[in-house]
């Protein structure tokens, strides 16, 4: 099954800028390669990655086939409130994955 890793600090002070790192297992097959038999390999990529936190989408990335396999993304946000961060990946062939992380903001 798809494995996703997210790295969010467990605690932060209100107003701090925190770094969030994410990694998901996915082949990101570009659609431009051929297999051993010479047959074209169908495109299979993640198209979007987003993060929701404290009532809003704080980050959205659109991937092209040129994003490397097992996409890694790191970005920043201001710690505003304790709660859940929801990470979503969506892509070709109905690919969907979701991961959550909790943060305590004091």
């Amino acid at each position, binding site marked *: 099954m798809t494995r996703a890793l997210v790295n969010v600090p467990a605690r932060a002070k209100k107003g701090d800028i925190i770094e969030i790192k994410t990694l998901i297992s996915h082949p990101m097959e570009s659609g*431009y390669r051929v297999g051993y038999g010479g047959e074209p390999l169908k495109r299979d990529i993640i198209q979007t990655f987003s993060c929701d936190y404290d009532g809003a989408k704080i980050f959205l990335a659109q991937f092209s086939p040129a*994003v490397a396999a097992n996409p890694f993304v*790191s970005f920043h946000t*201001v710690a505003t409130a304790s709660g859940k961060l929801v990470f979503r990946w969506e892509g070709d062939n109905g690919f969907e994955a979701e991961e959550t992380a909790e943060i305590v903001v004091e």
Partner: protein
Amino acid sequence: MSDAPRVFNRRTLVTRAVHVVAGAGALALSAAPARATPDMMSEAIRKLVGGAKVNEGRVTLDIPPLVENGNTVPLTVAVESPMTEKDYVAEIHIFNEKNPQPYLVAAYIGPRAGKAEFATRVKLNDSQHIIAIARMSDGSFWSDGADVIVTIAACVEISEQ
């Protein structure tokens, strides 16, 4: 090989021929054989910015100048901005010249990011020029570019699937 600009001995000719044949085979067989060109990159950038001026500066594209493996090239883009409700970076787009498509990745951020910086890893098909363009909340565009030398290109190896 000093005065004549293009003199090949037999070996280089043969190696080159092999490369050409292998390349042509891969291209002919792949689903979409197109390859982006600097023109396609300019076109893609025009589509993003319209007629607006793209200023140089404020954006820092950090990518290794020499990459051994084009299959996974780390890059970081940072944009100078106060990141307040009124003045922030809205979008960061990254373009390339020589991959099959001119786009690499686009990130939509906003005032809540606090810091306009993001990192990812991309595939590069050849040594080429990469351009990052940021769209600010006031609608202005800022950019930075970097040249990358790739010794082993992405996309050339055959999948084991």
